């Protein structure tokens, strides 16, 4: 029997209720007390997901700083906490203490809405991405579709923020974001379509389980993996596609006018999206929390799946960091060219491959009688 996130939460909440009522957790009095325990369990689930996401994001930023530092022949953060692990917390605290302000000419509502909504929509994503069997905040049958739908909210809020900042640099950055994210949304979704073709499901848990059974999808859908990763780089606005905040020409792009905690929120949103992007790559193409063949029992330990999932995620994100250390930034027109002229045909070719596999009886390939 596998332990699920809800089980953990219910264990906690039932013990709390048992403490309150003076009974044992296995023998709660019925009626409102059980209802309270269940409600509390959901609340605890949410808090666990939220806290785990934030901690994970902080570690992700730490991982980026350290790895990027090594690529650049330096050490990255060193002084706060062990090997600089608490540096991001310190930075966050510093930003938190700063005054929250807005430019006088800015549109107040849009200015404050944008980073808040950007961060919130990013964190919501982590609520229904499974990190292991049963370890998911809310199980949604169409979780993949929902994740991508919420993922594509971001350009809207970025554009609102850039426009309401009333700054030319912000505006240019915001328009670039809109153009870029729309251009890369399509290959991204088309790459996902190939996975959906192979599994016949939008449920991420099913997709991972299918991979555990029939082999990870990166091998048959290698084109899809490449397209998805490149498109995801663009969606995350990371080098070489970080044009919306190309600091050399646009100062800080769409977030130029944001300071203090508002800036921290945009950065947090960026990294949560980075985390979600890496999660999705692992879930869709690299077998999620499972391990292949003879190694599979290793993932069967309690919480073993979560560990492997995180390791894979960090390795995937490590590749993105590597890309950041090795590549310069492309230009807007070149970016759009790559998106429309290269990514789109590649993703279509990938769909054709997936469709052909399905026609030939994936996962047990047989030649159909013609």
């Amino acid at each position: 029997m596998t332990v699920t996130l809800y089980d953990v939460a219910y264990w906690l909440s039932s013990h709390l209720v048992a403490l309150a009522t003076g009974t044992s957790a296995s023998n709660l009095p019925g009626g409102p007390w059980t209802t309270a325990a269940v409600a509390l369990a959901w609340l605890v689930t949410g808090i666990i997901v939220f806290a785990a996401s934030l901690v994970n994001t902080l570690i992700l930023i730490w991982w980026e700083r350290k790895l990027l530092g090594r690529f650049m022949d330096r050490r990255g953060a060193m002084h706060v906490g062990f090997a600089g692990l608490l540096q991001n917390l310190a930075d966050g605290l510093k930003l938190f203490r700063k005054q929250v302000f807005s430019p006088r000419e800015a549109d107040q509502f849009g200015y404050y809405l944008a980073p808040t909504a950007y961060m919130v929509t990013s964190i919501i994503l982590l609520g229904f991405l499974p990190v292991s069997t049963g370890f998911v905040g809310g199980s949604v049958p169409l979780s993949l579709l929902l994740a991508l739908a919420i993922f594509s909210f971001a350009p809207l809020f970025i554009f609102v923020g850039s426009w309401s900042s009333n700054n030319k640099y912000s505006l240019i950055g915001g328009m670039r974001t809109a153009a870029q994210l729309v251009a890369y949304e399509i290959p991204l979704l088309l790459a996902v379509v190939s996975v959906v073709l192979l599994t016949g499901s939008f449920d991420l848990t099913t997709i991972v389980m299918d991979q555990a059974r029939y082999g990870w999808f990166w091998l048959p859908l290698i084109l899809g993996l490449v397209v998805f990763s490149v498109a995801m780089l663009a969606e995350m606005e990371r080098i070489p596609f970080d044009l919306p905040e190309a600091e050399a020409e646009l100062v800080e792009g769409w977030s130029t006018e944001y300071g203090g905690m508002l800036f921290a929120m945009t950065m947090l949103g960026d990294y949560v999206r980075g985390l979600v992007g890496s999660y999705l790559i692992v879930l869709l193409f690299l077998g999620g929390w499972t391990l292949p063949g003879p190694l599979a029992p290793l993932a069967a330990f309690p919480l073993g799946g979560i560990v492997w999932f995180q390791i894979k995620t960090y390795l995937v994100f490590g590749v993105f960091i590597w890309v950041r250390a090795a590549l310069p930034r492309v230009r807007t027109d070149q970016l759009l060219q790559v998106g429309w002229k290269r990514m789109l045909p590649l993703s279509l070719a990938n769909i054709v491959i997936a469709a052909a596999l399905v026609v030939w009886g994936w996962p047990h390939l047989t030649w159909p009688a013609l």
Partner: protein
Amino acid sequence: MSEMWVNMGPQHPMTHGLWNLRVKIDGEVIVDADPEMGFLHRGIEKICEYRRYNEVVTLMDRTCYVAGLSWEHVYLMAVEQALGVSVPARAEYIRVMSHELQRLASHIMWYAAFVQDIGLMTPFLYGMRDRDLILDLLQSYTGARMTYEYMRVGGVRNDVPVGFTDRCRKVMDWLEEKIHDYEALCDRSDIFLKRTVGLGILKAKECLDLGVTGPMLRAAGVPRDLRRDHPYSAYPELDFVIPTHDGADVYGRYRVRMEEMRQSIAIVRQTLEWLDHHPGRVLAEKVPRFVGTPTPPPGRESYILRRGYPKGRGFAAIEEPHGEALAYVINEGAEHPYRVKFRSPVMVNIAAAKDYLVGYRVSDIPPIMGSVDICVGESDR
């Protein structure tokens, strides 16, 4: 979208200093450009008139933070001509070596900043790491890393320390290896080539018409280098080539600077070899002493004293890392120069901005302006 003026500066990551590039953009395309300089004007030429000849050297370090020794050199060449001082050969060689080390440091600094403008952060730290070795070398014999105050009228302040030449050779070997790394990071990157080839074109004729000099001119295919065309100091005895490129674009300027770094390493090695075998004085024995009133009364006219230096005028031109730097010194016999005039190559190169910016995109501004190698302290003085 209609056309609009955007101020890139004075506080902007692209500017690398305090200046303002006003660009008129139509969507992403640049239709007009108007560089505004002068935010960092400190009146160095005027201050020079109130300093003794050797004291001006301090100001020269402040003209350009990456090429202090080059500016010391050009100023002192003009002063020595104005005062009629000859410099010992060993001092000339040390000056040339310092100048070339400075050129290396400047070009590495340029490379670091330029590539970071395109979005590649790794070379920035590689560049800083390697530039530090040069700064360590300079520190070992000048005592400072940025404001050296090392050269004097009639030579240099002190000789290089024992064991310096071997240490310097090691650094040169290391750098030669690392320049390969720099090139590997850029030349083999398609994105880098896409961001640099064919951008910011300024053809040879336009360069000559506008007075653009230095790597920008050589990248346009004109092999003009004062070190060879109007040799000074110890350059006539040294062996080096003038790298050029036919592209006249950002990439060409990058290639030219990379090759120049190799040539600088070659020159430094030759000077080290010479220094090893030619011990001697580094400061002229007979520097004319000022014999007038040591502290002049206020008021500029009274500076021209009865029994000062023999009157004279001096003009010097050197190939600074950024281009051709000229200095003109008028000596009216006082202990202070009567007038000092500098010509900064950076000023001219930036002033031509409209000619190489119009028609390109906003995203191209950082690489194009970066390829100019801007040092605002020097252009505004």
